[in-house]
């Protein structure tokens, strides 16, 4: 299964050089960008969290200080009333100094206060500011602030917010207050008795302070609770009371100052706690995880946009870089392919020094190849030419020796006319044999040569055989390899008609067949054994016992060297019936140009032969 995926991946991998570079660069760039993006996000996220926490912490500390200042002020008011007013005055004082001084204090601080009241140990109102009508039976002694003051006499007590239940208000309003109560010693008509001093702070002051820091609508919020977790202020106070939402204040009340991570109602959040001195109240800042995430959304979007922008830029850069790197190599490759396709060998040289060096090397090697190839062709031609020359030169000495001997006999026998004829035929034979050193001659010359040769041989063999030339004159103007008929005729005499008493006949026929020249030497001699025929064109050593020493193998080789392997000799023989040896050659018109081309060793294709024939025909018509 794994291999299957790898194979399919491998199939999809880009194959081109530029694509490979770009693909590799892009993959690396994307990985780097993803890592970079993640690191950036984590870093930003951590810094942002830290900053939010620090900001909240600072705000809490500042608000805590403000709250403490406010509460200290209330305590100072309480102290001032107790030590400067209550302790200094008798409640029964007719001058009402106590009331006046309380009024002074109240007026000075009325922005923060709801009321100041002094109750005796029975819960009776001794003095109050502002002066108001007390409710019929407020039952002060059963109210929490009174009980706390009486229970712990040495302390001042801050209550949780509650509705003031002391005075009648004709405007039907109920005030939400925080009571600061303490036990005091009252002097009434000279007697000392215990009582309770109550300073009711307006809850709206605290709620205003808290509202101010809760105005940010970013999800984080601040609340105030007492040491037991009872809510003093919460932005969703009523929702909590109604059970619509909840708060983890019981747990927060147990925390010491600092920041804590907690999970409440299925949500992770950070809680920062600051204790308000003396009261033990806890000012709590809550930062839900969603607030951090909300803040991070912008950063996330920014990073994603940045990554996308970088990605586009990287892709463009990769494209440019990969194109620059691969272009010279691609150009080089293209030029090499063009060269291979047989076009002009112009190797591209460009790009970096390494690629230029490579291109130079390729070009040099191609040039070297070209030279070497030319040299090889030249050498090959030279070799073929020399082979041809060597083969042709094999004819001369033996035959010349025999002929000269015959002439000598004729002169000795005073047959001068015959000797003259022989010499003239020999001269013609040699003239054609030499042919100014040419290898290729016209068929007409070749036939002439054969005729001279047969004339000489007929004299030598005392006309024991006859010779008939039946050649299509159209063949006369075609090219042939020099001296191909003579060795065949020699063989016909030696193997065929030479040993016959009379009636020996040799026919030389020539015709065109499918653009080929077929020259045939037919004799009615003894014929050749079947096994001999087999070796006639392959084994040059077996035929040298008779004749001029130039075998059919020689002729066959020369034709094939000049015209190609598909041409050459064909031997048909039957013992006591005769032999037919056919020469097959292409019908190349005999012109100076064609002769030179053939002699250089160039092999004509069939189409070229036809073309040249047409051309020669046109020239002839002209």
């Amino acid at each position, binding site marked *: 299964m794994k291999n299957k995926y790898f194979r399919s991946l491998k199939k999809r991998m880009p194959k081109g050089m530029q694509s490979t570079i770009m693909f590799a660069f892009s993959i690396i760039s994307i990985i780097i960008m993803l890592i970079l993006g993640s690191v950036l996000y984590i870093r930003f996220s951590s810094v942002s969290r830290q900053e939010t926490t620090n900001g909240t912490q600072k705000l809490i500390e500042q608000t805590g200080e403000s709250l403490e200042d406010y509460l200290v002020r209330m305590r100072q008011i309480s102290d001032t009333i107790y030590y400067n007013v209550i302790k200094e005055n008798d409640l029964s004082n007719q001058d009402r100094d106590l009331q006046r001084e309380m009024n002074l204090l109240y007026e000075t601080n009325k922005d923060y206060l709801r009321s100041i009241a002094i109750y005796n140990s029975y819960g009776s109102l001794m003095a109050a500011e502002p002066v108001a009508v007390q409710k019929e039976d407020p039952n002060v002694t059963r109210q929490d602030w009174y009980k706390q003051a009486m229970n712990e006499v040495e302390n001042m007590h801050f209550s949780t917010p509650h509705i003031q239940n002391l005075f009648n208000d004709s405007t039907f309003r*109920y005030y939400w207050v925080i009571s600061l109560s303490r036990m005091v010693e009252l002097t009434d008509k000279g007697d000392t008795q215990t009582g309770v001093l109550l300073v009711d702070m307006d809850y709206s002051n605290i709620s205003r302070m808290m509202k101010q820091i809760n105005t940010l609508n970013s999800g984080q919020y601040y609340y105030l609770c007492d040491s037991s977790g009872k809510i003093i202020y919460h932005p969703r106070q009523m929702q909590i009371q109604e059970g*619509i939402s909840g708060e983890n204040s019981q747990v927060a009340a147990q925390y010491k100052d600092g920041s804590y991570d907690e999970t409440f109602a299925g949500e992770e959040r950070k809680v920062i706690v600051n204790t308000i001195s003396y009261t033990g109240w806890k000012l709590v800042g809550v930062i839900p995880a969603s607030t951090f995430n909300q803040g991070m959304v912008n950063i996330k979007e920014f990073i994603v946009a940045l990554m996308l922008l970088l990605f586009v830029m990287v892709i463009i850069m990769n494209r440019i870089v990969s194109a620059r790197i691969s272009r010279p190599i691609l150009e080089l490759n293209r030029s090499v392919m063009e060269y291979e396709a047989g076009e002009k060998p112009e190797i591209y040289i460009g790009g970096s020094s390494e690629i230029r060096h490579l291109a130079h090397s390729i070009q040099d090697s191609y040039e070297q190849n070209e030279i070497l190839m030319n040299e090889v062709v030249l050498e090959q031609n030279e070799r073929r030419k020399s082979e041809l020359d060597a083969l042709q030169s094999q004819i001369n000495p033996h035959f010349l020796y025999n002929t000269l001997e015959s002439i000598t006999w004729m002169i000795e026998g005073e047959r001068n006319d015959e000797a003259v004829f022989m010499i003239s035929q020999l001269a013609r034979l040699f003239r054609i044999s030499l042919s100014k050193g040419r290898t290729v001659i016209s068929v007409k010359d070749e036939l002439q040569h054969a005729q001279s040769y047969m004339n000489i041989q007929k004299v030598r063999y005392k006309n024991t055989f006859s010779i008939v030339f039946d050649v299509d004159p159209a063949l006369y103007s075609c090219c042939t390899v020099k001296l191909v008929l003579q060795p065949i005729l020699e063989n016909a005499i030696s193997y065929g008609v030479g040993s016959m008493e009379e009636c020996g006949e040799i026919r030389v026929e020539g015709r065109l067949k499918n653009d080929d020249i077929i020259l045939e030497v037919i004799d009615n001699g003894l014929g050749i054994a079947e096994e001999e025929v087999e070796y006639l064109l392959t084994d040059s050593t077996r035929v040298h016992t008779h004749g001029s020493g130039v075998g059919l193998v020689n002729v066959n080789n020369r034709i094939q060297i000049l015209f190609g392997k598909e041409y050459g000799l064909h031997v048909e023989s039957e013992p006591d019936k005769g032999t037919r040896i056919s020469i097959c050659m292409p019908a190349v018109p005999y012109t100076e140009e064609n002769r030179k081309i053939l002699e250089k060793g160039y092999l004509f294709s069939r189409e070229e032969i036809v073309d040249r024939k047409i051309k020669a025909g046109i020239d002839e018509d002209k």
Partner: protein
Amino acid sequence: MKTSKKVFILLGAVLVLVLIVLMFIKVGGKTEKDIHKVSVIVSDSEDTQWASFKYGLRMAAEDKGLEVFTVSTGAVLTLEEEKTAIEQEIDNGADAVIVEPVPGAATADMLKKIEKKVPVMLVRQTETEEQGVSAFPVTEADNYQIGVDLAKEVLRDYDGNIQGKTIGLFMSSVESEAIASREKGFWDYLKDAEVTLGWSLAETEEGMLEQQPAVDFVIALDNNGLEEAGKCAAANNLHGALVYGIGNSTEAVYYLDTGKVECIVVPDAFNMGYQSLAEIAEKLLHYSHKMQSSEVSYTVMRKNDLFSEENQNVLFTMSQ
């Protein structure tokens, strides 16, 4: 053009397009249109009886991220006035309305037309509707049960025996479906108590109450009635009748606090405001949401437990 070049250009174009789309989303993401506006049309909206309700609306608006606006209305709201007020609010961009339907059979038809434009939440049932079957979502207390509980409180003070006593019923509007339910609940519970109805008065002009013959109990079936009865009791103009009633203003509580009223049943107006807006918010945020009616609780207050923690919270909402 080569295929690789085409792919490259296409890829580049797609990426640039994604960037542009992202930017558009970013720039156009937070518009003012996202903050839904809800208007509240109730009669005598400045009256203290709506303080808790409005506080509940405010809290829900903060929680749900809505903008809520309470239309200032007079003590008596006619159908035409209510219709005009609602249409004006819709024209001013209100995405939903919370309505206290004016008494009358035609109100439902008017509201049906409004409902086709914007979601409508009622804080009192319309008159033509059968009990418990409402064409509109309603957030209110169970008025019938409030009547029953008020009757229970009367009986409790007399150990269940109020035989031969006379009762005077007092209310600000006789047409209201809510008051009718409360009255029904009240009488249903007292059907075996052998009490007699001295009079039943829907106040049409001030001072009518004190002119009524003496009864043993004055039962105020709505806040305005309770305040009026409390005021009369404070002025000793009720011929010694004990006042029981239903209300949710600090004035009503004050008469309880001062002993002029024996007992009051306070519907949870804070929750009425909170839940009605929360339901509207749900509808506005999720179009497919089908608004549901909901029932809020009520509190029975007596003088001796007036300052209990629970009641203090009720008073807190009334004082906002």
